[in-house]
């Protein structure tokens, strides 16, 4: 505080770059803590020291089974799925300049779900197919479903540019239509597949294995750098399409890239764990609130997503009775937040 800059520094906005960096670092630490907690949490009496010792290869065989074979993939899935959803949500919310515009609400998640359910149901009643479906068929089907939905919703919302509220409304319609199709598929399916699909649609990390983590990890490794490189263009886009174009942003290409990244991340996440609701909605908003910025910071949103999913799952395993899927917890937390946002969101209505 030099005292020279006059009365206007009162209530000054902090310099965004520094604060975002700090928030990102704090989130990274939180991810580490939650990751370890996810290894320890659960029914067996494993201590923190046991878990860490097992991680470096010094545990007893039962400890190795629990930590390395059962919990590690689950934690890895939670971290990657959460990161993918958080990043996807940050991208779509920024792109549409509207916090309601998340993959869940735009229909992308349901599209991925429909693709995945189709893969589960139509794969035939044999369990031998399951691992092949998990490894390849499911992610591909989910990506296909998500991409087609995204293109249809975006195409329908397009009228000389995309109005974010029209995008959201059409997304809600698409979500409803896809929900109907998904129910139809489940109703027509054999009872075992129907049960598997319904259970999967809740969004859960129970029963995930390394093969289902791999596609998400791959999507993150490939897509996250592309998405992060769009950061400056996303900042410019917050000033309106015309200003962004004037600043040298190739708008159409930028839009396609951002949407493509969000679709790929959402599809990968959904194919691994089923649709874990509201993570893509809540995580970027938390990150944005912490960083105090005009848009959700991408990396911090991904990290908050990891914390929410992994933490929610650990919470469900250690505190709540029975095996409650993490998808139910995120919905229980996210839905009230959505209602709150709708009630307090009147000022952002006019974004073109």
């Amino acid at each position, binding site marked *: 505080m030099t005292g020279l*800059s*006059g009365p*206007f*520094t009162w*209530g*000054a*906005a902090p*310099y*965004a770059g520094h604060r975002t960096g700090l928030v990102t670092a704090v989130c990274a630490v939180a991810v580490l803590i939650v990751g370890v907690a996810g290894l320890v949490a659960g029914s067996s009496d494993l201590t923190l020291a046991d878990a860490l010792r097992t991680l470096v290869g010094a545990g007893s065989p039962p400890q190795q089974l629990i930590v390395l074979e059962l919990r590690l993939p689950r934690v890895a899935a939670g971290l990657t799925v959460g990161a993918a959803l958080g990043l996807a949500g940050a991208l779509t919310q920024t792109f549409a*300049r509207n916090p309601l515009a998340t993959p869940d609400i735009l229909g992308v998640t349901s599209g991925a779900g429909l693709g995945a359910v189709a893969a589960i149901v139509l794969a035939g009643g044999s369990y031998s197919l399951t691992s092949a479906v998990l490894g390849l068929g499911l992610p591909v089907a989910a990506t296909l479903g998500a991409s087609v939905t995204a293109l249809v919703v975006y195409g329908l919302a397009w009228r*000389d540019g995309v109005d974010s509220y029209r995008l959201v409304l059409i997304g809600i319609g698409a979500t409803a239509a896809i929900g109907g199709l998904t129910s139809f598929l489940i109703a027509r399916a054999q009872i075992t597949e129907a049960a598997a699909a319904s259970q999967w649609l809740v969004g859960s990390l129970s029963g995930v294995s390394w093969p289902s983590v791999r596609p998400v990890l791959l999507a993150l490794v490939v897509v996250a750098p592309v998405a992060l*490189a769009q950061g*400056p*263009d996303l*900042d*410019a886009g*917050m*000033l*309106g399409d*015309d*200003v962004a*174009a*004037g*600043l*040298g*942003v*190739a708008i159409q290409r930028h839009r396609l890239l951002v949407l493509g990244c969000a679709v790929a991340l959402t599809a990968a996440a959904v194919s691994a764990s089923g649709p874990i609701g509201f993570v893509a909605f809540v995580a970027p908003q938390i990150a944005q609130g912490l960083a*105090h*910025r*005009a*848009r959700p910071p991408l990396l911090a949103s991904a990290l908050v997503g990891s914390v929410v999913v992994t933490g929610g799952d650990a919470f469900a395993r250690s505190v709540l009775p029975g095996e409650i899927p993490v998808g139910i917890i995120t919905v229980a937390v996210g839905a009230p937040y959505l209602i709150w946002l709708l009630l307090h969101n009147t000022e952002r209505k006019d*974004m*073109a």
Partner: protein
Amino acid sequence: MTDDSTPSLAAIGATLAYDRHVVFDGIDLEIRRGEVTTLIGANGCGKSTLLRAFGRLLAPTRGRIELDGRPMASLPTRAVARRLALLPQKPLTPSATSVRELVSRGRHPHQSLLHPWTPDDARAVTQALAATGISDLADRDAASLSGGQLQRAWIALVLAQDTPMVLLDEPTTFLDLNHQVELLRMVRRINRQRGTTVVMVLHDLSLAARYADRLVAIASGRVVADGSPWDVLTPATLRNAFDLEAAVIADPYTGSPLVVPTEPDGPGAPAGSEAVPSRTGQSTRPGQSTQAGQQVRLG
């Protein structure tokens, strides 16, 4: 370098249309370097459309827009952004963004992943803040500024882009008269000091005349008058382009033309049928204006 006589920006047989609605059918217009050119015309005449085409926000369906003698469509948009800055009519003011941060977005075309923020960028932003007189607002939240301050911040963003050419689409809309004058004075000072070529769209004809080197009057998809403010703002042009009966007198302070709408049957209307009084129907030239100015000032 390009020859100075090359027009910096030119529409060449450009047809501009929204969907199937053709606004301009083959328009030619050259913008000269170093001048403040102001496009005027009635609402819906297409002046903003033309400005959008110059700013590559609207691609011509036929013909072309040239920047420094080269077709704009063939240039990378980022390269164009280093030559030409534009301020559209309704920019979105982001939340939780300080004025300095907002202005620093103007450096976008100069940055890349390999060339992030440099001292040059910081200097351009500081200079832009100073040139627009908002240095002491730099740490304020942009959303908390008043209309006049905010518009200065947007101009600062455009200046931070550090381009030889600037397009402004109705930069004074929604501003009080004092802020309109302040803003236009600032734009002209920037033009004089930095040599920045300015093309803008303005509604207020007298202000347009006062702060422009050249006026281009547009009506029904073509240029109806083009030249110095005194050449363009004639009662005949005003009648044709704006459907406005008006006298043009010399601004008592600057000697620039002042458009004074006449009342067909109000006080001061001549007894004769001429809508425009013959005395003022002829434009009063700047040379004759000094005395009138003094009279007004004394009166």
